[in-house]
């Protein structure tokens, strides 16, 4: 029997597979597909202090081996999430979850983090400083080490639970930003968010997305994500949640060899609602094929 157990800041996950924020709603709804308790954890849809509709539609586009989204953080606001969504999820999922939060100012991040920190089921607070879909906000925190450190410090100050900072890949030097977050007290790093990208509709000759640009995710970005996880693993000593195009048990292993302690699966869930289940089910056979007894032992193994 292979051992798929991993740890994030002392929290044990029965396996490293976590549906990525924004691709699994607030979880509960997908209980009709399969028993969610097989999942290592769940990263909830990005939550902001105030409710948001997000960007105008169309906000999805097809790409080679991937997709664009410009959803723009649609969510019912942190109060509603705490009052309605988390209790619903609790009925069907017993493990600690990852609360993904976003904001347009340090104050909003703090407000959101504070609310989530008090929720029993929240195991980790994942601070998204990288969403490319929010004009004038979010993203800017992710491209400067100084701003990233400030958000980290402010959120850490009000939280008792582990705080993971989710980084943007749209930067010249990801390791530098990760390091700034670590120094500012981050307990872990999540990466990568989507790559800023666009498509143009040949029929209308205008951008396909109403918001012009959106975020590229799916297998297309896997090699970039892997490189960034590898670089960040070299730079920091806190745990990394790796993501970006992961779609198979083999991808999970590759991501962990690069340095990830756990792995999020995003776009793959949208193409196949059973993606996480299938990855979890095929993981033991893949581990055996490559002679891996214990997943936690291969973290960073490619270095």
């Amino acid at each position, binding site marked *: 029997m292979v051992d798929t157990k991993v740890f994030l800041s002392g929290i044990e996950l029965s396996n490293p597979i976590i549906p990525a924020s*924004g691709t699994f709603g607030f979880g509960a709804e997908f209980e009709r597909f399969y028993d969610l308790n097989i999942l290592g954890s769940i990263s909830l849809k990005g939550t902001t202090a105030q409710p948001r509709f997000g960007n105008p539609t169309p906000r*999805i586009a*097809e790409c080679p081996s991937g997709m664009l989204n410009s959803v723009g953080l649609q969510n019912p606001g942190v109060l509603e999430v705490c009052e309605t969504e988390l209790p619903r999820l609790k009925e069907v999922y017993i493990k600690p979850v990852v609360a993904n939060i976003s904001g347009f100012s340090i104050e909003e991040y703090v407000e959101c983090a504070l609310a989530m920190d008090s929720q029993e089921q929240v195991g980790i607070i994942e601070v998204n400083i990288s969403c490319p879909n929010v004009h004038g906000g979010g993203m800017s925190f992710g491209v400067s080490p100084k701003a990233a450190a400030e958000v980290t410090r402010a959120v850490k100050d009000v939280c008792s639970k582990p705080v993971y900072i989710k980084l943007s890949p749209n930067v010249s030097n990801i390791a530098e930003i990760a390091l700034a977050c670590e120094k500012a007290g981050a307990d872990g790093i999540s990466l990568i968010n989507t790559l800023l990208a666009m498509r143009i509709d040949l029929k209308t000759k205008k951008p396909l997305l109403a918001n012009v640009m959106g975020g590229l995710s799916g297998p297309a970005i896997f090699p970039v994500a892997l490189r960034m996880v590898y670089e960040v693993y070299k730079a920091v000593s806190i745990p990394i949640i790796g993501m970006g195009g992961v779609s198979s048990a083999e991808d999970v292993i590759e991501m962990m060899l690069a340095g990830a302690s756990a792995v999020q699966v995003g776009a793959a869930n*949208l193409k196949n609602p059973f993606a996480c289940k299938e990855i979890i089910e095929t993981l033991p056979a893949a581990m055996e094929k490559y002679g891996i007894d214990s997943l936690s032992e291969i973290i960073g193994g490619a270095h």
Partner: protein
Amino acid sequence: MKKDIFTILTNEKLAKDVFKMTLQGDTSEIKASGQFVNIELSGLFLRRPISVCDLEGDVLTLIYKTVGEGTEQMSRLSKGDKLDLLTGLGNGYDITKCGEKLLLAGGGVGVPPLYLLARQLIKTGKIPSVILGFNSKEDVFFEDEFKALGAEVFVTTADGSYGIKGFVTDAIAQIKSWDYSFACGPEAMLKAVYDCSEKDGQFSFEERMGCGFGACMGCSCKTKYGAKRICVEGPVLEKEEIIW
């Protein structure tokens, strides 16, 4: 929602760029007309949403127009080929809510979902008036099929090359009495039907989809009752909740 591998039984051309495909598989989750399936195609990342046109036992009928890579790939498939489908998606039309004198208005590839709807309505004894709107004679399909069901059928073409010249709303003017409508088609058509009377109805919308089953928030629209996902709380909206 169910995921199953369907086997293609037939795939034939109906009109210019329009094909009819029948497939066999697990249809147990399909509960209403107006629902849709989401089809995985080789080499394409996103699935393609297509409405349920008809359903008999485990045989599903789809009608689709070739507008891009995905639908063109579908048109090249043949008997025996397999497709991975998500079925039972969307709310579908609610036939418990309508009155007696019904108008069904479909434009282009908005026509197919009205077929199963018409069949179900007729089974309950309600004979709808059906308007099928197309651009031109070469685009027309399913007129005979709706007639065979026993419905009263009007065909419009924008260029007047067949049936009534004009849009579906031009045909609506000719229908004496109706008290409730079901509509599906391009947004401009839906808006025209919406505007042409005060009567109640159900309207089916299209939106670009990431998942088709509620996970991504890609397909949201604003309604009078807040944001709804076209793929879960839609594609059918009640007339009174629509915000244009």
